[in-house]
């Protein structure tokens, strides 16, 4: 069945002494969905991603991936399940070249020759050819975002998590990002966290709004964006 549930959060709660980053979040994701997560700063979106990717152990609650509880798994084990994440602050290997970064991701599951082939495909696909041999630390923020996307793609994940992928991108790069996201969605499930409403409008189908660690509303994009409560939250009128 195409609409089987691949990710499920059950009462997921994360507390940082005093701050409740996630407050009993329940969320279900269907296979091949493209889900957008939005919400004001500090709503808990990145924390949710971290729980899913194994970078944060929840205080309570469970994360279930394809029927298997993954709560407390190390990040590498989650990655090996076929989940790739682009973190909010790009996490890349700064001292290495663009090519080497992507190669390391590709080499994990492929022999060297195939990894080399995957790297050149991804460099083409993301238009990174000219930057291939540059050290990542010399690149602009937006370019690093794209390199990190390349790293994620090289791992050939079935679930892709993108935390604010459009931040720091130029107009052209945003267009490219949008088309790549749509491309990925042909074969993989995606969750995208984004602030930029124009960006959301271009890609979104289902949208989940986080507010103060809770799910405020979960509806199709038009309903969500015309919802008065959501607007209030974004304009900060509602405390």
């Amino acid at each position, binding site marked *: 069945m195409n609409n089987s549930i691949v990710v499920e959060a059950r009462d997921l709660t994360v507390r940082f002494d005093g701050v409740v980053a996630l407050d009993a979040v329940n969320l279900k994701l269907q296979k091949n969905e493209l889900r957008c997560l939005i919400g004001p700063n500090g709503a808990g979106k990145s924390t949710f991603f971290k729980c899913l990717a194994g970078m944060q152990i929840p205080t309570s609650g469970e994360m279930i991936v394809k029927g298997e509880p993954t709560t407390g798994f*190390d990040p590498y084990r989650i*990655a090996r399940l076929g989940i790739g994440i682009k973190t909010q602050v790009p996490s890349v290997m700064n001292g290495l070249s663009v090519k080497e970064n992507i190669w*390391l991701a590709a080499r*994990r599951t492929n022999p060297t020759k195939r990894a080399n082939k995957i790297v050149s495909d991804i460099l083409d696909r993301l238009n990174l050819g000219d930057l291939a041999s540059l050290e990542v630390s010399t690149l602009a923020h937006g370019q690093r975002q794209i390199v990190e996307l390349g790293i994620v793609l090289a791992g050939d994940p079935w679930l892709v998590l993108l935390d604010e992928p459009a931040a720091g991108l130029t107009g052209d790069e945003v267009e490219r990002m949008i088309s790549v996201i749509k491309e990925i969605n042909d074969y993989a499930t995606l969750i995208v966290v984004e602030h930029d409403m124009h960006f959301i409008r271009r890609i979104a189908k289902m949208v989940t709004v986080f507010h103060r660690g809770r799910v405020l509303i979960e509806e199709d994009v038009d309903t969500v964006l015309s919802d008065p409560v959501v607007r209030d939250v974004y304009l900060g009128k509602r405390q």
Partner: protein
Amino acid sequence: MIVSGAKEIITTVIVGLVLAYGLPLGIDTFTLTVLSIYALLGLSLGFIWGFGGILCFGQAAFFGLGAYAYAISAINFGTPWIPFFLAIIIPAIIAAIFGGMLFFGRLNDVYLAVLTLVFTLILYKFMNVTAGEEYVIGKARLGGYNGIPGFETLSLPWDPSEYIYGDSLFYFSFTLLLVVYLGLRWLLRSPFGRVMIGVRENELRAELMGYDVRLVKTAVFAIGGGVAGLSGSLYANWAEIVTPNLFSLGQSAEVIIWVIVGGAGTLFGPILGAAIMGYLKFLLGQQSLIDNTLVLGAVLVLAVLLLPRGIFPVIVDAFKRRGWKRRAPANRPPRGRRRRRERRDEQ
């Protein structure tokens, strides 16, 4: 890749031959042997620190373990070559177990540094109190602070009456230094080496790619332990006695100084640092005018202040800059970027 690999082997062998024939003209081979041994020890730390990102304050532990493993097994077996290999394998295994506990426990770098230091201290204290007759391993008495003398040293495998000592011990140690150096260079180019550098660059990202960082670091640490053990076993053959001082804090500190002075982040730097500092210490040891730890300390401070990247990267820079001036003076990349890129090149 293959071509540059062959070029590198040829370069290393030529430089090695020149040094092997040139150095004995100015310095006696007895001293050169111990400098090669130090270089090997420096190389072991340079590898795990500069490329694995693991700062070990107790590299002397594996050096000492190698020396003791050699001495103890040489007494028990009565032949030198099984002990020679045991002296590599045992420290590597102990490093794997000890490192594994630290890495799988996900201790942060500071704890790691402190615990490796404590590990050395424990070995040092323990070996010092093993003077009693009850401390024996097989036929070998540990001997406490007196150490273990009188074990079989290396000889030709096909003629046990021909001992490898004096000049031949130097050529043997020096050859091993070259072989290990080339081996580590090869390793760094292999997929494993590239992953290990990736881990050094960004552990989290390596983990998110699906690499088990703990396993990679444990393997790197074990390799470093094995090389340090090899160095220790050669030292045992050179000194013909092993004592607890091999585990001393001073020895651990010296290795770190060699790597810093020579250039962490390169493989050749630590070799150079060990040779220079080792020779300086030897020269200072021949006079009693100034305290030699004071001078060595001063050299370290000067190196850190004047050449924060170490001696070797500066030499490489100097050569490259001359090359650049000739070729393309106009488009040199900005300074910071150039430096960083060169650091990669030197690996």
